[in-house]
């Protein structure tokens, strides 16, 4: 039941995108987000959609996974679409009492929905093709210039890595504690909100205690292996930019150029 939750949605594979440098992937994902907002019309956005579809095709991520990642944002998409539909002024298409739907409203709504879908699907591609540990590694390296500003970049990355590492462990632990309390007759399924919140106490307290215990043990184990922060620490896996990263960067750059050109020559939709 609890085990079905997937956090850190890494989908293992061996495609070109999987093997790209995480730093490049992060940068290109940001570039893709910028690209989506640069596209002013349907033609530009269509390029963005096609680009993403090709990326997903190359990475062999099943369509069902994309749909799964989009499920939680459906309400947000609907909400923005409805807001845009009713509140953008322009040529009325449909009028009833105080409700007016305009042509511009409709196209903005469609545009925004596609944009949000691409946004989520695009960033999900990053987490689907990059394991959480590699991802934090990439983030750490990207942020390392901030060390000069005395920002504890390594410590932050280490915290993220540890947090990600312990999610499955804690889920398993929660499952166990829940079973144990249920065996003692704890009723977790019925009752009102207050009652249910109270029923969580016998689960949360042991869970916290075990989390603290694990933290203590882990700190000790790290110290035993001479961990003393990021200073002078070398890595087992050196990140290296390769030709495929450069090719990826060039492709994204060309797509952005294409979108700019489309914006200039085909300023479709939205008046």
């Amino acid at each position, binding site marked *: 039941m609890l085990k079905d939750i997937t956090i850190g949605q890494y989908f293992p594979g061996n495609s070109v995108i999987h093997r790209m440098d995480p730093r490049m992937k992060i940068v290109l994902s940001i570039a893709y987000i910028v690209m989506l907002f640069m596209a002013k019309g349907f033609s530009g956005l269509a390029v963005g959609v096609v680009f993403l579809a090709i990326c997903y095709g190359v990475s062999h991520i099943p369509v069902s996974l994309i749909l799964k990642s989009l499920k939680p944002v459906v309400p947000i998409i609907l909400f923005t679409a409805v807001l845009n539909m009713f509140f953008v002024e322009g040529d009325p298409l449909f009028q009833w009492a105080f409700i007016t739907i305009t042509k511009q409203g409709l196209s903005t709504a469609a545009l925004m929905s596609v944009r949000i879908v691409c946004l989520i699907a695009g960033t999900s591609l990053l987490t689907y093709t990059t394991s959480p540990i590699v991802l934090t590694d990439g983030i750490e390296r990207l942020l390392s210039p901030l060390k000069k500003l005395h920002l504890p970049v390594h410590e932050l990355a280490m915290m993220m890595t540890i947090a990600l590492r312990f999610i499955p462990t804690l889920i398993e632990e929660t499952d166990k504690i829940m079973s144990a309390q249920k*065996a*003692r*007759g*704890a009723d977790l399924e019925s009752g009102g909100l207050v009652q249910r919140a109270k029923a969580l*106490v*016998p689960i949360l307290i042991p869970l916290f205690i075990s989390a603290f215990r694990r933290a203590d043990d882990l700190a000790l184990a790290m110290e035993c292996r001479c961990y003393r922060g990021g200073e002078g620490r070398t890595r087992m896996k050196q990140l290296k930019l390769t030709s495929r990263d450069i090719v990826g960067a060039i492709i994204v750059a060309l797509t952005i150029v294409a979108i700019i050109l489309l914006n200039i020559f085909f300023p479709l939709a939205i008046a």
Partner: protein
Amino acid sequence: MAAITVEHLSHVYSQGTPFEKTAVDDVSLTIEEGEFVGVIGHTGSGKSTLIQHFNGLLKPTSGRILVEDRDMWADPKKIREFRFKVGLVFQYPEYQLFEETVAKDIAFGPSNMGLSPEEVQMRVQQAAQFVGLRADKLEKSPFELSGGQKRRVAIAGVMAMNPKVLILDEPTAGLDPRGRDKVLGEIKQYHKTQGNTVLLVSHSMEDIARYADRVLVMNKGKVAMFDTTENVFARSEELAAMGLAVPQVSRICRGLAARGLNIDPNCYTIEQAKQQLLALRAGKGADQNA
């Protein structure tokens, strides 16, 4: 009357996914009231999955479980009732403690049963006595206690529900030898005075040999053997094939018998072996005197 009857029970984890795994495969068995049953099996043999069915934490994929001749899942809303009838002590149960005081923690189960405060109090006292907790410990925080004491508090928490069947999943894992003997002695004592059915899951063949009347051997999700302790440990080759062993003393007796000593090769407790050896020596002495 049978305490627990299992009819063609199967359990499949993550059915319909690539991770599908049959943990319990068409198991049928009957556990009689008042028995002390030892449960052994290699890691992953399905014993934990099986015992979690006995108090309704897991629902069978197929098959039925009858507790006191009543189908457990006839009405899923009433499943809690069966959890009070069949108490389950998990592995490392001390990690489930959460209350401010030991007494309150032991009272969690009986309170959930909806008993009166006086009745709950009585149950707490009784359970504390079973596991040898002194009265002054009852008002302490469970987190101040030592590992072994915490374990006993957790076991008392289930005993206090006074279940008809008490199941313990490796109650001695991680305890020192003295703590182990103490906990097992307390469980035996509880079984004796209450006359309840007890199921003990253990990796220690010595413990099983010492306490169990009958032994259930699980292998690859199926019941490999379910017989008296003596009969089970007599089949040492089969047990070895499943990655299990017989008690060390059985191996010694067998070895001695193979070397021509007049000793029962199937004795499985130190007590039995001692008697046999003493009898043998007495016999020898008599021979020499004659």
